[in-house]
């Protein structure tokens, strides 16, 4: 069951070394076991048999996880021979409502607000990517849809429980007070936030990748590349080599330096 919930897979470090290793993260078996550990520690939950399904249900219950019963999206993907030079911009119908997109935009901008001249995540259209992501007909995307859309509802319901308002109607301070409970490691030991914290972590990863993939985000990150170089590859800059020399020294590796 958990195989079906890998938040975002990105491609590869280098073709060969990771061609067979699409990176996956988020709700992994490791995390399930971690939940079971929390559950087994007896934090306000009934005795369990050690079954992963039961553990997950219990953690969802403790966290007031909304059960949305979302209908499955069935449709065609882009196929196994799509146009690589001019890809379709939207290969499948988008499905998020205005309300969902509005809430998603606020979450995106809590994660990556405008920073001087660098636009915020919503200004860089990250919510549109989320919509494309959860609307795609592929199994991983459909699994992520079953987590991400309930997460938006959870934020609204949690706002209601705490402040009697929906998430988007609250002040930034109040929004932060909720996000503070789900955005850090501490949530792993609190059954109220454990499940949402895992989903939030997956959402944060997806938003982070989308944010830095945009031209403005790429500039902000500082990536230099994807440009043709005439002649030989220049290798590390003098500054990078000086830094390497420093860390080799600090790690006691200077005498083993590659030559």
């Amino acid at each position, binding site marked *: 069951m958990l195989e079906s919930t890998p938040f975002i897979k990105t*491609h590869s470090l280098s073709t060969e070394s990771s061609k067979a290793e699409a990176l996956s993260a988020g709700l992994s078996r490791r995390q399930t076991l971690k939940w079971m550990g929390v559950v087994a520690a007896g934090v306000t939950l009934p005795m369990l048999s050690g079954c992963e399904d039961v553990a997950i249900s219990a953690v969802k219950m403790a966290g007031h996880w909304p059960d949305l019963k979302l209908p499955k999206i069935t449709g065609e993907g882009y196929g196994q021979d799509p146009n690589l*030079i001019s890809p379709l911009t939207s290969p499948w119908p988008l499905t998020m409502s205005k309300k969902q997109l509005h809430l998603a935009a606020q979450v995106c901008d809590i994660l990556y*607000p405008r920073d001087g001249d660098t636009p915020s995540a919503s200004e860089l259209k990250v919510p549109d990517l989320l919509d*494309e992501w959860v609307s795609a007909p592929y199994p991983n995307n459909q699994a992520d849809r079953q987590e991400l859309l309930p997460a938006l509802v959870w934020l609204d319901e949690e706002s209601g429980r705490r402040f009697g308002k929906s998430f988007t109607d609250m002040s930034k301070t109040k929004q932060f007070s909720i996000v503070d409970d789900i955005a850090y490691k501490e949530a792993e030991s609190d059954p109220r936030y454990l499940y949402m914290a895992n989903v939030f972590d997956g959402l944060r990863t997806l938003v982070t990748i989308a944010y830095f993939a945009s031209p403005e985000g790429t500039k*902000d990150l500082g990536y230099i590349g994807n440009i*043709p170089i005439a002649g030989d590859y220049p290798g590390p800059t003098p500054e990078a080599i000086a830094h390497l020399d420093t860390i080799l020294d600090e790690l006691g590796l200077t005498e*083993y330096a590659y030559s």
Partner: protein
Amino acid sequence: MSDLNYDVVVVGSGAGGAMAAYVLANAGKRVLMLEAGRDYDPVKETPMFQTVTDAPLLGAPTPDKDFGYFDATVDGGWSVPGEPFTTAEGTEFKWWRSRMLGGRTNHWGRFSLRFSEHDFKAKSRDGLGADWPFEYAEIAPWYDKTEELVGICGTNTGLDDMPDSAPGVLQPPPKPRVPELLLAAAAKKLGINAAPMHRAVLTRPKDIRSACFYATNCGRGCSIGAAFQTTTSLLPLARATGNLEIITDAMVKSVEIDEQGRAKAVTYIDKTTVVERQIAAPVVVLAASACESARILLNSKSERFPTGLANTSGQVGKNLMDSTGASLSAVIPALKGRPIYNEDGHTANHLYIPWWGHKAHANNELDFPRGYHFEVGGGFQAPGTYYPQSLQGYGSELKQQAKLDYGSGVNLSLRGEMLPNENCYMEVDETVKDKWGIPVVKFHWQWSEHELKQVKHGLETAQAIFREMGADVSASLPAPEDAIKKGGEIIHEVGVTRMGSSPEDSVCNEWGQTWDCENVFVMDGGVFASNPHKNCTLTIMTLAMRNASWLATQLDKGAI
């Protein structure tokens, strides 16, 4: 070209088939090539410089494009539409196929390491698996010729796992980058050498191809021909002789024989009209990929060869081997916040770690029989492929962390030699046919203790290297059974039509000529007698060059 107007029919246009066609066409033989996939032109179809924002889902892998949107695989990947395969109950196997001119050479990793005498004669040393029917010294000149033609960058290191190339054959390798240099020093402290990876990437221009300009991932293909693929090199060069004709969308089903037991024709499905056609074949070279070639042989049943063509030994489909694979990653605190520069390079590792355990093996210090190497990943990847390890918080502290972590992850990927075993083989599943009506392949798979112990050693070594790099290595290592990749997942499947010195226990002789049928040859990875850890494509091409040259001389003599 009419049916009677050519000398050799080559099945497949990938590494083996294209090299065979190139050699034969240049020797004046008229060659007809049948390719199961569609025509493909990297000059027009390669997404050079497109960023992930140009692709659906940021280019992420999907079941339609298993290695991501821009990967140069057409109508394939872990599945091919309408062309299933089956696996025995309780076993798992992954089979990467593509249906395009040039096959899997359009996207391969381009890692090109020579096998050595040590590799070719491993059974003589430890009694396991099979020896190859020739010496390294005999094949070394063919490696030189192949490396020269393909264009390999790298260095002669003198290390015992890396036989030297003849002087002047290798092109200069690109300079190593910071994570590789740090890793090399850490490994050296443990007595392990790093070395320049040998890759089929031009760093100097050659014939119709340009030198690498160090940008845009080779897995997308290479429109300038710097990263080797047959569609920008061997195939256009062979076509230029006027002696090669290619029919695409031709899915070969079987080889037909005459009363004397010689091949007389090839049967294929013309996929565009879905009509079965038969074409006369004076000589057949199978290079459809190891398991497809074995499938064709097994599906070529006759009264004379009731268990399939060239299968008197019963070895067709047996001895299926992949490389072992496992991977370990670490965040290196010392690499956080380091000065950013262009680390694209030739888009794969500039340094790798060749197998260093030859002496330890000789001294019986290791509990597994065969070696492995490590490929190194990391660096300032293009955004969209950059994957933050573990993020906390939100807002400016989140962004600060993401930027600080950028370029601090390092990955070691193990690629090791597996031994053939009786539980790893393929056969034809008579109960399932593909959409062309051809019975499909059924796989059987089980790793042995040899591979699991090797992976355990590799994980511990990788952890030790990361420790020297200052990483937190307190997390316990995964069990080898969990860490090892699935059979087939490394896409080095070979051995199912192996060559040998006796018709009793092999399918082909040292020339790739089947023992049963003198005018049927196999020139893909199926002929491998063993599967050294060094990536199979360079040796597939080298054997195809050598054996097609031999075939040409036999045709000249009228001996076949």
